[in-house]
């Protein structure tokens, strides 16, 4: 910058800035002179995180949290759904079993009726009145029974 282009009050400022610049240059040169250029091997060789790694780790953590937040409820829901399906299948199986049993039940009842008729028939056959020739003996047996029981009613026959 040319001093002739500046207003009078600017000149001391420019001069101060020039001195400031000169001072820093001299200081820097002196420091550099006493500090030979050398890269610290240990520091350079140290594995360091690439600048992309830091946000990447953040995203990875966020991803894990998102998976945890969404995945766990989904897994729990799925597990419950499977359990409900299994329960429904068991209930369906039970119902089918009961229906089969219900279908077989009338047949058994018919069998029971048949047996009962047969027994009644047998009973009726057994309970057939004594033949005429045997009637006196039958009445005697009735009399003796009445005596034993104490009624004492004489037989009308």
């Amino acid at each position, binding site marked *: 910058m040319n001093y002739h282009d500046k207003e009078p*009050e600017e000149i*001391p*400022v420019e*001069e*101060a*800035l020039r*001195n*400031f*610049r*000169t*001072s*820093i*240059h*001299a*200081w*820097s*040169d*002196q*420091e*550099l002179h006493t*500090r*030979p*250029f*050398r*890269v*610290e*091997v240990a520091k*350079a*060789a140290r594995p360091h995180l690439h600048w992309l790694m830091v946000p990447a780790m953040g995203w990875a953590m966020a991803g894990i949290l998102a998976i945890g937040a969404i995945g766990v409820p989904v897994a729990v829901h799925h597990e419950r759904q499977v359990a409900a399906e299994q329960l429904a299948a068991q209930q369906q199986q039970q119902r089918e079993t009961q229906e089969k049993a219900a279908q077989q039940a009338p047949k058994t009842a018919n069998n029971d009726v048949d047996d009962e008729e047969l027994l009644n028939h047998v009973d009726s056959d057994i309970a057939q009145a004594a033949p005429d020739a045997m009637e006196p003996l039958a009445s005697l047996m009735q009399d003796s029974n009445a005596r034993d029981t104490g009624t004492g009613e004489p037989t009308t026959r």
Partner: protein
Amino acid sequence: MATLTTVLETMGKQTVAMPDAEFAEVASRYRPQIFRFLLASLRDPDVAETLTQDCLLKAYRNWESFRGESSVMTWLLRIAINLQKDHWRSRRMQFWKQTANNAVDAADAGHWLPSEESSPEQQTLAKDQVRLVWKAVERLSERQRTVFMLRHVEEMEIHEIASTIGLSEGTVKAHLSRAMVRVRAELGGKR
């Protein structure tokens, strides 16, 4: 620069496409300017040296990503500014308060003046001016300070500064203007 080549070879950087010799040339050419900018920004020679090395290593590792859209110096300074931001951020406090013990005091930072061509009176005046500028710079915001250093220490043009920091030229001018108001106020008040 044989030292650099030797050290880089020991790093086992076989995947980097840039030849060591080429990078050694880049490092030797631009290291003083990067160091100077960081020293002016931080006032701590040790931290400035560490960040300069980090800057060059980062440039070496990412050389393939440099597309030549800006100058090498602009690219390197951009890396240096980012490292400087990370350094400040890592402290989790305002840098000037945190590193007050390690950094050179603003009052002492003006002692480095070439004394060949000026009288003792002029030397005293110059040192006083430098001290006042440092005092004003100390009160600037991080961005204002960066813009001020790039403009008045590195003597970069506005468009170069805008390209380096990633701001518009108008924003750079605004930051520079605010910084200059402080500097003028400091110099004017003590004149």
